[in-house]
């Protein structure tokens, strides 16, 4: 089998590819690069090469049958009463993709007695609602939901299928893509379309340290799960969608799971819905100093967030963590106090409308994304701001 292909004529022996190879599979010999058996064709070297001397031997298949696939679909996630926010976000983003492809936006709505959500979905931009209702679909179950969607896709042939990168969305999309034997890109934070109708799916990998753009050129539909809070919720209109009732014969499938009960968490802090968030990081120095952050947050009616460094130090609980491995938030105002702005922290908050940073290091990366900020000691600045705010509010 193949390794990455090296064009020895073109190679200038600069070694840039050797440095980026995650597997240490590339090495220099006689001023040219060589590859060993560790190469797993990950492709990291391709872009690093300044002279395009490296390539992966792939084939593009005949695309004639791909043209049968039309439409951008969004898999609706809901709690029985209303869709969760990421569904609206995806309808908005799906609209943009559909316009570029000159096609429609469809949503897939499954459940028991869920037709009251149809108009709501239309008002956010869905042109068509593919509806399947049954007592079997009362609770989300991978097999039942997955089998219905597979049949729907086979019947209506959408070119793109999006779902939220939530526990349910990832579970469902993984199941459906495997049965359809098509590509699935996980946890996307950027979507676009190229001139050939390929979905350019951009996503973080390696714990957020790198970004990758993934393509699915030879199979349809192109499927992605998309991280919540990355795209805005679109404006509502009074559009009414077309409804397609989908009949599914549940007697033909066996469902091997049964949901016995659901135990909701007590939501004490709802970071995800807060309009203002004040977050503290390692720069606070000690747990007691979080009180200063909390008092400030209370004064302006904000929720309290934290960096992983603060959570790992035990200063505040994990529910407060913002970032790659914590919550993704999109408040109107995000105030980062004593937080450096690592890629992993930014992954969870950089889509906030306005970012404010307070940090004693003027070079801290967080200032790059901050619309406003103060270079200074949080322990001095925050109490001063709290005092000033209280003064003005009383005035």
């Amino acid at each position: 089998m193949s390794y990455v292909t090296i064009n020895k004529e073109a190679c200038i022996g600069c070694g840039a590819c050797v440095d980026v190879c995650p597997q240490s599979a590339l090495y220099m010999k006689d001023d040219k690069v060589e590859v060993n058996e560790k190469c797993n064709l990950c492709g990291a070297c391709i872009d690093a090469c300044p002279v395009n001397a490296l390539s992966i031997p792939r084939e593009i298949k005949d695309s004639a049958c791909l043209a049968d696939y039309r439409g951008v679909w969004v898999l609706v996630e809901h709690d029985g009463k209303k869709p969760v926010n990421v569904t609206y976000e995806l309808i908005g983003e799906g609209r943009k993709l559909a316009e570029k492809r000159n096609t429609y936006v469809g949503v897939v709505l499954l459940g028991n007695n869920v037709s009251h959500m149809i108009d709501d979905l239309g008002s956010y931009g869905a042109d068509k609602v593919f509806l399947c209702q049954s007592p079997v679909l009362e609770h989300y179950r991978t097999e039942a939901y997955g089998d219905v969607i597979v049949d729907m896709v086979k019947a209506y042939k959408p070119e793109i299928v999006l779902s939220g990168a939530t526990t349910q969305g990832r579970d469902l999309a993984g199941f459906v893509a495997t049965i359809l034997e098509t590509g699935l890109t996980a946890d996307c934070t950027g979507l676009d379309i190229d001139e050939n109708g390929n979905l350019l799916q951009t996503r973080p990998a390696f714990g957020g340290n790198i970004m990758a753009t993934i393509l699915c050129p030879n199979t349809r539909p192109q499927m992605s799960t998309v991280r919540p809070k990355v795209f805005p919720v679109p404006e509502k209109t009074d559009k009414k969608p077309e409804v397609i009732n989908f009949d599914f014969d549940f007697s033909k499938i066996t469902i091997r799971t049964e949901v016995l009960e659901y135990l909701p968490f007590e939501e004490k802090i709802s970071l995800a819905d807060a309009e203002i968030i004040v977050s503290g990081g390692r720069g606070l120095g000690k747990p007691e100093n979080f009180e200063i952050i909390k008092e400030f947050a209370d004064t302006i009616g904000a929720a309290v967030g934290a960096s992983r460094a603060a959570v790992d130090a035990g200063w505040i609980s994990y529910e407060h963590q913002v970032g790659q491995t914590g919550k993704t938030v999109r408040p109107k105002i995000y105030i980062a106090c004593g937080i450096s702005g690592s890629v992993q922290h930014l992954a969870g908050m950089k889509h906030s409308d306005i970012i404010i940073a307070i940090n004693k290091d003027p070079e801290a990366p967080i200032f790059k994304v901050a619309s406003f900020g103060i270079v200074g000691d949080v322990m001095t600045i925050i109490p001063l701001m709290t005092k000033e705010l209280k003064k003005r509010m009383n005035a």
Partner: protein
Amino acid sequence: MRVVVCIKQVPDTTEVKINPETNTLMREGVQSIVNPFDEFAIEEGIRIQEKFGGEPIVITMGPPQAEEALKTALAMGCDKAYLVSDRAFAGSDTLATAYTLASAIKKIEQTDGPVDVVLCGKQAIDGDTGQVGPGIAVRMNIPPLTYVSKIREIDPEKKTIIVERLMERGKEVVKCSLPVLITVVKDINSPRYPSLFEIKKAAKKPMIKLGLADIGIPENRTGLKGSPTWVNKVFSPELKSVNGEIFQGDPEECAVKLVDRLINLGKGVSL
């Protein structure tokens, strides 16, 4: 009761940094480790076998050096390891990886007997997709239970299992028939550290290599050829500088200025 644990060898991503000058990944000295979520899967597999008897099997697909990851699992207490390795598997995306692993597990069933529980981690910290687990389940035609934070009970007689699944807003309690595929989150247990004695013992445990021909799958369903997704471009996350208003100097003055801005901004918000 027969348990198979799927593990992946990954670079320790907490060590991976971006070189700010060249904008590339710096990986010198980055260790290869067992995917952290898979340690919870190994631990859970061993616990199931300790309770119900049987010998936990561990399997990985990867290059020859992935054997190191298997040794860790054997030292923790697994009894038998399978290294699924062949040039033909290189470049596999999650669809091809799941197909290859599921085919390998079906092959193992022919020699070791039917499997009741397949365990995976929630996700691998390099590829970060969480798609391989559900994919294996589909290919083996067994139900997937993802994000499991607790196994409440297993009934080997009735062949049923009850688990808790960790969702965003709560826990779901699900009952399911065996065999089953489970992906675990880190709340499920605390993995044990192997002792020196067990590390020594592990060296004598069976380590079996399976290649393309052993598994007997067509070459075009694995590796690059069997992978619908292509990694087209890899780059480091760039920061678009917003050139904001950053105050410096007298703390009191700075605080007053920032409060001004905040109150202005806050007009649309419930300040």
